[in-house]
């Protein structure tokens, strides 16, 4: 019978995808995050297509400012990759430096976003309530901002741990996991920047 045993059957099967538990879990978690943003972005597309009026790009939002902010977030992804690469090689000084830079870029991104919100709310009268454009703008970028905040906290914890010398050549899985999350948040921003600001 085809289901009977053969000698090759009993070899170990752990990690058939070549990915350990934590990394697999992170990838799966990011899948669910993709679906969360898909729900939001899908709703945004439906609402915008169904709306009779919509401001033209740049009419309300400050595209150059957010363009700079986008660049800063992309830079933070670069420093994150570097941090992981140095962790892989076990260079303590450079892990610390790049984790700190990533953290710093993240904070700058959030600060610029906060300034942007403040100006839009108080100077341009754009509120989340009462009008659909404000609703979509604040909630989409706001949910992303919360994700960046979570990432910034995680990177901060990594940085502290790197100061304590927790990451060695052989043991630096948290750097990779947070890195995956950080790149995902970055990628979502590029999509949001495109559909909320540029189009």
């Amino acid at each position, binding site marked *: 019978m085809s289901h009977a045993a053969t000698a090759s059957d*009993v070899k170990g*099967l752990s990690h058939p995808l070549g990915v350990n*538990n934590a990394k697999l879990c992170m990838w799966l978690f990011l899948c669910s995050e993709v679906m969360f943003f898909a*729900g939001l972005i899908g709703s945004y597309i439906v609402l915008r297509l169904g709306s009779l009026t919509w401001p033209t790009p740049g009419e309300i939002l400050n595209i150059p400012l957010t363009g700079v902010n986008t660049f800063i977030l992309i830079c933070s992804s670069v420093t994150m990759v570097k941090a992981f690469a140095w962790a892989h090689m076990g260079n303590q000084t450079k892990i610390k430096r790049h984790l700190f830079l990533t953290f710093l870029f993240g904070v700058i991104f959030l600060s610029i976003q906060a300034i942007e919100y403040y100006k839009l709310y108080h100077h341009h009268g754009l509120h989340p309530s009462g009008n659909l454009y404000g609703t979509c703008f604040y909630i989409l970028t706001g949910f992303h901002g919360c994700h960046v905040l979570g990432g910034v906290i995680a990177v901060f914890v990594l940085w502290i741990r790197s100061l304590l010398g927790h990451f060695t050549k052989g043991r630096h899985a948290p750097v990779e996991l947070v890195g995956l999350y950080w790149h995902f948040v970055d990628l979502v921003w590029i999509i949001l920047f495109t559909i909320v600001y540029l189009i």
Partner: protein
Amino acid sequence: MKSFMHKYVFSTDHKMIGLQFLFTAFLFMLFGGLLAMAIRWQLAWPGTKLPVLGVIMPETYNVIFTMHGTFMIFFVVIAIMVGAFANFTVPLLIGAHDMAFPKINMASYWLFFISCVIMLASFFAPGGAAATGWTAYAPVSVKAPMGQSLWLISLIVLGVSSILGSLNYLTTIVNLRAPGMHFFRMPMTVWAIFITAILVLLATPVLTAALAMLLLDRVLDTTFFLAGTGQPVLWQHVFWFYSHPAVYIMILPAMGIASDVLSVFSRKPLFGYHAMVYALSAIAGLGFIVWAHHMFATGLNPTLGTTFMVATMFIAVPTGVKIFNWLGTLWGGSIHFSSAMLNAIAFVSMFVIGGLSGVFLAAASLDIYLHDTYFVVAHIHYVLFGGSLFGIFAGIYYWYPKMFGRMMNEKLGKIHFWLTFVFYNLTFFPMHIIGIHGMPRRFYDYKQYEFLRGLEPLQLLISISAFALFICQLPFVYNFFVNLFVGKKAPNNPWQANTLEWTIPSPAPHLNYAKVPIVYRWPYEYSLPHAKEDWLAQDQP
């Protein structure tokens, strides 16, 4: 005391967490059942005084059917399928010591618990609990009293709990299978939970996004679902994008359980094992592209409606494959009518009826008429009670010995089964008829309408059968709880089943396997022509 807390309350053992889900869900099953009794009381004798509650007012009636649906779907069926059974069975059936992340597993239960508390607390909110139906259609839900906000928060927390659970199941099934346990040697229960976990992982976040938007509409005055600026129908799209896959989240594990139970008690290999797996996957995949069949009555573009109709009807194909495979499994087997088996057979036959009425409802032109009538209520109960709940009963009768180390009483089990089966059909089958007659699903007092008055005899029949159905659960409650203490001690393998969990003592010890088992064969080696016994366990070379 400390060890008690560690063992039974803040446990990281997958079996204990599964039982925590099970017992919490039992409590909600009681609440949800009592609410159903109140609904049936009102429909049998509208406006008469009910013991304890008094006369049900229209606002209260709305709360009652909303919370009946919410409890039964989110806190009973999903909790038992994805919380209790998945937790209890997955590591045991694949030969693992525990879940990949025991602490995340514990967090999953405690988030579930918090969400239960919030949902129960909503009854005491000003204006009462949510009263907009379990579907919470906008814009009514945007303007509803505060209970609706608690309802939303509770379900967001529940969603996070489910996602954490599914991360654990998927990681565990992919990475922690025992040596030799290839994907195509996994029991159908594990396959079903694997595919269900993918559905939970990908569908639940969309519901979370929808719930968050609705909550923001309520507390921040955003305008996602508000008529005029936003789009109320958008709520239905995002809600059903989750809630249609959710139907499969509730039924696929039952399909897995039934497959295993049918094979064990017919002493025959599962018919069409590979086809079963592909059919499960097909149902799950199609489940993502059919959501708008719940929305034919919203003024959906008829061309679009037709595509959703056709896609929906396609689901009948893999479903048919499964049903014929179950019949093929039974065919020519030496069938043992144990309590678990009877419930599994009831699952198959009742699910056929629920599936067929689903095809009726999928036909857009017919659905325009049947939408929001009792026909829909009949359909959902044939799928969720006739399907999921009989599957749950089958699973409980089957794994009870491994859960508690004691046997349930077979005679009581059979009495419970037959009474439930008869009164279940007497309760829900006539709902098809009153639905076709035009009885709307959420009317407070149907007697105010001339054309519905003739339904009184059927309404009485349904209500009296429903009360009987409720009372008939007493033998089960007795059987379950009393045998925890006085039941006959269970041997390792009372059913002579092949899967790994039956090779270890009952109840399964902490960390399950003293030595990692090695798997040599698929789980369905029954009635082998030349074997000594009529079964051969998976760990036998």
